[in-house]
């Protein structure tokens, strides 16, 4: 709410039965957000958040190229995702498949990331389309079993840091 706040709050919505959408405003022009989003050494610095340490960020940024991110979670296990790019519009839009390696039967989700700039600030929109409602529900169910408390603790920290 404070006018001086540089960062907004992530907003999660469920636009349809098979989707999860996350939006967040960032205090930077979109070409820099795109750079931070697609450059391996920069991805490694933010992608794991507070959940662990990013160990792998490989990005072959072209249509048909693949990406793979991995982290060592705080609990010690490895978490990895990979996918293939199907659409790339530099500084505007990236579409790729998104496969959680711990759930190979889960099928490929398709994630569309859009970068929209207004007055030097960028709204980042991450729309994930799951192959079925069952799989989206499973993602939600697994999210509830693992890391819920940890995430709520994070939320508290974030809330405190925003004060």
């Amino acid at each position, binding site marked *: 709410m404070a006018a001086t706040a540089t960062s907004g709050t992530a907003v999660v919505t469920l636009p349809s039965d098979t989707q999860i959408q996350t939006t*967040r405003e960032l205090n*930077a022009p979109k070409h820099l957000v795109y*750079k931070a989003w697609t450059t391996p050494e*920069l991805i490694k610095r933010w992608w794991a*958040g507070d959940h662990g340490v990013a160990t792998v960020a490989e990005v072959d940024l072209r249509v048909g190229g693949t990406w793979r991110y991995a982290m060592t979670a705080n609990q010690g296990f490895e978490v990895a995702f990979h996918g293939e790019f199907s659409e790339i519009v530099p500084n505007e839009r990236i579409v790729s498949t998104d496969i959680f390696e711990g759930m190979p039967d889960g099928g490929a989700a398709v994630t569309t990331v859009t970068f929209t700039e207004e007055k030097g600030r960028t709204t980042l929109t991450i729309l994930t389309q799951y192959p079925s409602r069952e799989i989206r529900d499973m993602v939600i169910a697994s*999210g509830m079993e693992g890391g819920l408390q940890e*995430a709520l603790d*994070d939320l508290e920290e974030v809330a405190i840091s925003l004060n």
Partner: protein
Amino acid sequence: MILAMARAATTTDAFNAVAEPRRRQILDLLTHGERPVNDLVAEMRLPQPLVSKHLRVLREVGLVDVRDMGRQRVYCLNGQPLKPIHDWIRAYEASWSSRFNRLDEVLEELKDQELGDQKRGDKED
């Protein structure tokens, strides 16, 4: 297998129940207070058996309660089963917030770098 896993978690039941647009419409109508079933049928312009079917699903997961008032069955909303979904969304938001907070730091550096590059460029001109 995947289906079985998804169904096993009771928390997904209310979630599945609200995934259906007509059932969400019923919940919306009930947010203004309890309503007799005929009222809901009239408002939704759907065949009564279909409305009753949706109400049965909502009852099974505890999202609506029903009571008899004379000859009428009156339905009211019970939001409690939605709490796990609400909690999950908050947790998911928090998970992303911790990433975005780091992204903020990276972006501040990139902006500084760009500014530095511009200044150097100006001097060279």
